[in-house]
């Protein structure tokens, strides 16, 4: 299986692009064929992902595996360097899985103005960009994949989105580009300040920012911070998110929540922290502060929402706040929790957006005050919604718990040299945030699923969960339970790789 070792990541990244090219060649009228090709492509890509799962050497999860390192742009010494370690693996699999489920979910209900050809072609480009970001080990290559997701998502929101799609898609695009422009400047600064000059993430990580003056490190970290924090999004850069989520078509929201937001947090874990540990140490209290502000702000925002999707979007801001809090502690405990939080949030919030989409499809509204009694009209969907709300509020035994609870706990004992009192204060605030989370989620559940059916829908015939929905949702639901019961599945994979990062902070404090 030598060839697989060197080709696996290239296949996982570029198979969707090949599929996209095939889709583009098929005439628009042959919709069935287009859907089949797309499904086949995403299935094959996931098969590659599953192969990677089996071939991955779990005893060496801290090392990059399946590496490819070929020359690409010699002139600026940027290389086609890809690799996968314990941090990337869960996120890559999440990406490949979610995309497949999104294709299945869209099967019979493409949002207006229909056009499956363009929709699926964009989705495949999106998959390439997302998968590539998680395995790229060269800053320029990372940048390309990081940006590659912008165009398809822009068009997805803009063409298939809700009434305010023009504004939302433009806002999404401008915010992210603003961050990534400054991020690129930081990448270039890292290149010129490293000796010998390199864009290689592995080599830069080994250097730990040696030889870069502290002030310069802080500035460079600032550029990286902006790029990633906007993507996460952290308070106060989050304002694009509720708009984008609300206007995006269901599948767009799911991908946005499940994968796109993780590009930002992944950037922190893969690039910002390990390459500039010293600067990360100085920035950590501020990141922690913004994270807990995000937790509280997101929760309060949720309580004020009238729209289901907007509520879930604000809950994302709060959840990503937990993830960032975990990262800001700079401990292996916190970062492990953060990665688990990314996966859990991807599954749970992805599911919630699926349900919101299906609710909208049936009732043609997402306004919480107009809905009610979902458990009576579509009991299965109502129960699934209830289940996901429980998972999202961090009920022990489900996946959400393992993302949230350890992240809060990790703030009790942050890395050496960080202000203990401050982080313990963050811990208390975050704990209050979990209470608020229970509040807004149960409030939504109560108003949407329980009670009597409003007069408006008394005579409406509401379909319960149908086949494509079952196929798309069951894997997610099972995983939410499985990861809740056996969190070790993820923690064991990520831990070794995370230890490598957190070690540099142990040295830092003394």
């Amino acid at each position, binding site marked *: 299986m030598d060839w697989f070792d060197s080709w696996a990541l290239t296949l996982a990244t570029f198979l969707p692009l090949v599929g996209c090219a095939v889709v583009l060649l098929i005439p628009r009228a042959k919709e069935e064929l287009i859907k089949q090709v797309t499904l086949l492509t995403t299935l094959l890509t996931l098969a590659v992902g599953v192969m990677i799962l089996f071939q991955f050497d779990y005893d060496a999860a801290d090392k990059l595996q399946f590496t490819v390192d070929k020359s690409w742009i010699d*002139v600026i010494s940027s290389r086609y360097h890809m690799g996968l370690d314990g941090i990337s693996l869960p996120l890559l699999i999440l990406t490949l899985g979610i995309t497949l489920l999104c294709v299945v979910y869209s099967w019979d209900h493409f949002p207006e103005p229909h056009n499956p050809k363009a929709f699926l072609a964009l989705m495949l480009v999106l998959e390439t960009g997302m998968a590539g970001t998680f395995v790229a080990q060269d800053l320029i290559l990372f940048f390309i994949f990081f*940006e590659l997701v912008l*165009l398809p998502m822009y068009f997805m929101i803009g063409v298939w989105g809700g009434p305010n799609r*023009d504004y939302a898609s*433009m806002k999404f695009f401008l915010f992210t580009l603003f961050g990534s422009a*400054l991020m690129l*400047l930081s990448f*270039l600064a890292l290149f010129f300040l490293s000796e010998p000059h390199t864009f290689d993430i592995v080599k830069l990580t080994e250097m730990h920012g040696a030889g870069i003056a502290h002030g310069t490190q802080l500035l460079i970290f600032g550029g990286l911070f902006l790029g990633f924090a906007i993507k996460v999004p952290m308070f106060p850069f989050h304002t694009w998110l509720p708009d984008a989520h609300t206007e995006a078509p269901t599948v767009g929201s799911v991908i946005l929540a499940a994968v796109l937001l993780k590009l930002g947090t992944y950037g922190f874990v893969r690039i910002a922290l390990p390459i500039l540990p010293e600067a990360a140490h100085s920035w950590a209290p501020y990141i922690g502060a913004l994270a807990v502000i995000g937790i509280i702000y997101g929760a309060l925002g949720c309580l004020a929402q009238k729209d289901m999707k907007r509520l879930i979007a604000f809950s994302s801001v709060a959840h990503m706040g937990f993830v960032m809090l975990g990262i800001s502690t700079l401990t292996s405990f916190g970062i492990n929790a953060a990665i688990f939080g990314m996966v859990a949030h991807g599954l749970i919030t992805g599911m919630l957006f699926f349900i919101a989409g299906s609710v909208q499809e049936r009732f043609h509204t997402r306004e919480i005050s107009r809905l009610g009694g979902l458990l009576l009209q579509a009991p299965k969907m109502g129960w699934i919604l209830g289940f996901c709300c429980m998972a999202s509020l961090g009920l022990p035994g489900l996946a959400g718990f393992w993302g949230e609870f350890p992240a809060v706990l990790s703030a009790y004992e942050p890395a050496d040299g960080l202000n203990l009192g401050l982080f313990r204060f963050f811990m208390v605030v975050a704990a209050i945030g979990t209470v608020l989370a229970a509040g807004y989620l149960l409030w939504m559940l109560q108003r949407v699923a329980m009670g009597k059916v409003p007069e408006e829908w008394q005579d409406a015939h509401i379909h319960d969960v149908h086949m494509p929905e079952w196929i798309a949702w069951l894997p997610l639901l099972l995983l939410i339970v499985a990861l809740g019961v056996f969190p070790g599945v993820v923690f064991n994979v990520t831990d070794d790789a995370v230890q490598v990062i957190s070690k540099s902070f142990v040295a830092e404090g003394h």
Partner: protein
Amino acid sequence: MPAPYFDYTALAPEIILTVTIVAVLVADLLFEEREKYQTSTIAGIGCLVAMIPVLYLAGNGADRTMFGGAYTVDNYALAMKALFLLAGYITILLSTNYIEEGDYYQGEYYVLLLTAILGMTIMASARDLITIFVALETLSIPTYLLAGWRKHDARSNESSLKYYLMGVLSSAVMLYGMSIVYGLAGDTRLVEIAKYVSSGQGGQVFDVAIFFTLVGFAFKVSAVPFHFWAPDSYEGAPTPVTAFLSVASKTGGFVALLSLVYVGFFGRGDAWQPILWVLAAASMTVGNLIALRQTNLVRMLAYSSIAQGGFMLVPFAVANQGDGSARPEAFSATVVYLLIYAVMNLGAFAALIAIARKTRSAEIDTYSGLFNYAPALAVTMSLFLFSLAGIPPLGGWYAKLVVFKAVIDAGTAQAVILGVVAALNSVIALFYYARVAGMMWFKPTPAETSTARVPVALGAAIALPTILILAIGVYPNLFARLGELATKGL
């Protein structure tokens, strides 16, 4: 006095172009009115044939100099000549149907176009003040006429007149500067001027001379605040000519500026560096801000090309900063940017002309719903626009990257500030590029849509740049090598 040495191989591209010009003139005399469209074929073939010696010379590799160093054929010159011939060829493809259907003079049009291309190929080799000036006029005078080609249209007349007056004014200013340079340095060859500069003589009078020369070129490349002629001229001129002006003649000006600054005046950084810093920052910012308000795509592209020109000026402004490693970096950054800009801007204009056959207008509002009834055109146009905005994986990202790289390499405070200005500007620019794309993709389809087909020549003029920007975007090494080779001439 011995006869000057002619290297006919090195001059072959120019000679072939000259022969083609004569051939088109004769053909225009001989052909019947309905056969005259063939003049465009002859002109196109001439451009392609002229490419052969360029490729041969590039493969051969040796630098050739003539006329005491006034005329040099090195890698840089060859890369630029190849670009000019390619741009010329695409312009001819663009023009074929436009000029034929519009009832314009055909033969004369191609003669003037080819003459301008000839001027540009000479410019690429010019290393002497007089040669630069002659090349610049050979390139400019035909374009004054071409801008007024729609002679029954008042705006085309205005365009031509404005362009002419501004062109003459800038030439006068530039010549004034050059004459002082010659008076002080005692030589017109750039190499000799560089020697004079490094000897540290001249004082403030020389600074004034540099100032005037640069201002003259600032007019040519329409850098803010010497830009105000450009949008009117661009809008009034026939669209293929606008494409040519915004790409080819702008590039011509930049090529001259590159030779002058990097070869001739480099040692006098304190004189030219602040001027170019201001021009770069102002062009990017003002060009972008005004582009935001445009409702006509041609005018928008005109202002966007002013902003793009600002990006090309950024490396100039940091070339003498830092520890000296920035000089080759900055030089190749501008060269690479020029090459990529030319391809994507020509593509955008080609798509614009094709779309105008359907919408009968370049007003952005009329693009509504284009994606629904002409998906291929909408997609290619979007690709060009996002490439201009610098979104990966389209070619434009690499152009932006090398500019940022030059800036960070220089590393001084003023360089980094300019870099941040550039980064912010690339975000502003996205707004208006994306808005046009949004109009095509997100807005409703009009009740009546044209079924006009895209002619083959125009289709080729769109396909060629599309393939190029995708290739450059995914594997920039191809173009990047050109930029690096070009730097060897320094």
